[in-house]
């Protein structure tokens, strides 16, 4: 198999309400890799994640994003998801009245149909879901509830990863999934994520904390600042950031002219 990147972003610019937020992002994620994106509040991390998922509030003004060599940006959000893109939201919405089982089954079958696979019937679907619930230590009560309705912050995050486990994406983008998780939940979620890692898929983790990266060890760490990646390095970069804060990379950024 040729080593075609799963995700390739080239000089991507995006704005919201006419204000430019992403100012030239370059990023290549190869199969089997985990990339971490760190950076101060408001630097554009979630914007990047939402742009990749296809949120229409964010307008791409120039640049490219390719998923396995194909133009990602021309696809509707549902087509991206069916092609294997999964965004674990920083703030998952509550959907009162939307039954979790119905929702997940609709999602799984939409993806399967797209892949030319047969849709799962109720029994097969339940078997799949039960298996994933065990991995992520999620209770069955969740399936009977409305999607995210009344969930605690941590429960919402865990539910995102549970959905990811069920949908088995090629490219998973986790936007601050670790925020709001207690230490035990963090370990469970990280274990779950690690089990989903394979040489065929890839992950992008947006996080503020080095702690997550102790459990899910990244291949590359990037620092996003004012809409650009100003520094990339190995996993030790996260440690350095934890120690020194963002100031020392910011200084570096001023030198190369960001800001």
């Amino acid at each position: 198999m040729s080593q075609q990147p799963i995700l390739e972003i080239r000089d991507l610019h995006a704005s919201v309400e006419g204000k430019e937020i992403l100012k030239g992002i370059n990023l290549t994620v190869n199969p089997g890799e985990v990339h971490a994106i760190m950076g101060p509040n408001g630097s554009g991390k979630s914007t990047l994640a939402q742009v990749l998922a296809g949120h229409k509030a964010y307008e791409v003004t120039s640049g490219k994003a390719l998923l396995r060599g194909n133009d990602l940006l021309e696809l509707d959000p549902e087509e991206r998801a069916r092609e294997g893109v999964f965004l674990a939201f920083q703030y998952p919405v509550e959907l009162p009245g939307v039954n979790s089982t119905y929702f997940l089954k609709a999602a799984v079958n939409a993806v399967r149909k797209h892949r030319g696979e047969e849709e799962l019937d109720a029994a097969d679907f339940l078997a799949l879901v039960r298996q994933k619930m065990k991995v992520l230590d999620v209770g069955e009560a969740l399936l009977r509830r409305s999607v995210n309705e009344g969930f605690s912050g941590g429960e919402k995050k865990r539910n995102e990863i549970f959905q990811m486990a069920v949908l088995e994406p090629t490219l998973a983008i986790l936007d601050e999934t670790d925020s709001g998780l207690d230490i035990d939940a963090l370990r469970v979620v990280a274990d779950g994520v690690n089990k989903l890692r394979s040489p065929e898929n890839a992950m992008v983790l947006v996080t503020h904390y080095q702690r997550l990266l102790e459990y899910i060890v990244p291949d590359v760490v990037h620092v996003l600042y004012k809409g650009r990646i100003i520094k990339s390095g190995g996993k030790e970069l996260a440690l350095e950031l934890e120690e020194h804060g963002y100031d020392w990379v910011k200084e570096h950024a001023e030198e190369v002219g960001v800001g």
Partner: protein
Amino acid sequence: MHSTTESFLKNFALLEHSLNGESELPLHQLRRRSLERFSALGFPTTRDEDWRFTNIAPLAATHFRPVLLPEPHSITPAQAAAIGYAGQSAHRLVFVNGHFAPGLSQLGEVGNGVAVGNLAAVIKADAGVVEQFIESLPATRPDPFAALNTAFLRDGAFISVPNGSIIQQPIHLLFIGAAPSEATVAHLRNLISVGANAQATIIEEYVSVGGGNPTFTNPVTQIAAGENATVNHYRIQHEQESGFHVGTFHATLERASTVNSITFTLGSAIVRNNTNAVLGGPGAHCTMDGVYLANGTQLVDNHTTLDHAAPNCTSHELYKGVLNDRGRGVFSGRIIVRQDAQKTDSKQSNRNLLLSDTAIIDSKPQLEIFADDVKCTHGATIGQLSDESLFYLRARGIGLAQARAILTYAFAEEVVEHIAIPELCDYLEALLNTRLEH
């Protein structure tokens, strides 16, 4: 408006011919008086305050063939089960074009003085009972459609649950309209009495089979809930798109009784539901909920009245509308709190989801409060589907049309979940989703 009522007046002569000896009964005098009343009132126009937003000119201009006697039909029991609710029921009474269809019905065992049957048979046996029940319907407002119904009174369901009897399984009433060769009309009358400490659940469902000709369904359902009785009444209307439906529901509640009424309106070109309850005994409780859907150029008008005539009663009303395309909804919620009805607690809410720029809703509460120590709240809202919610579903691979359907159903789900029968909830979920995914 005389010309449009004329065909009904002519049909009345035909009805009298078909009645044979029955026209000698005092009940028939009631029919005649009702016809006179209808004739005097005529069909309403948009100049009538109660019909301001609902123009029934297309109905008034259509000639409907009265189906005066039961006619042969080709509907099989399997067909009837496929077009309506097929879950568990204690009894299933099926009517075709206004007449009882024994071959399609399943009457379960009745004991302890419970009576479940069709009105035509009861009229033959004891017309006085029927007459009395019908006379108890208060004519609070001049209602030409209820008058027309009584004038053409023939058949419907008759249910009598004596004191202390509890019927666990629902009683399913299925009304099938069929108009293969010309437009037809059915004036059904359902009389339901549930005695003191008794309990019953009624599913009243309206469907159509075959033929593109309009049907006009003009049913009146009366419920009398005795002291401490509990009655659940679920009305499901999903007739064919070219039809007309004017449905009247009237419940009277005695001391400490409970009536839960839920009305689902999904079909027909023009629908008007008059849904009324009189809380006539202290401590009675009424919930009055509804879901209405208008696609294409459908018009659904819900006029409700909750009449608090005794102290310490509570009423909860929740009507939720989904208006799409050029669909139109009308909601008028009248709450009367009479002078004696102290400590009344009444909550009314009408929420609407507008799925297109051309859909319309006219919503108005009407509060008439004559007591001083009462709690009455009401509110109406209009909203759209949330973009963030839609994006969340799409980001999981669910297509836009399905995502919209899921969120729209979720909006109506709040009412569906008030139904106490899980099988019926599932049925309605499927029914609503089929309509929504179109």
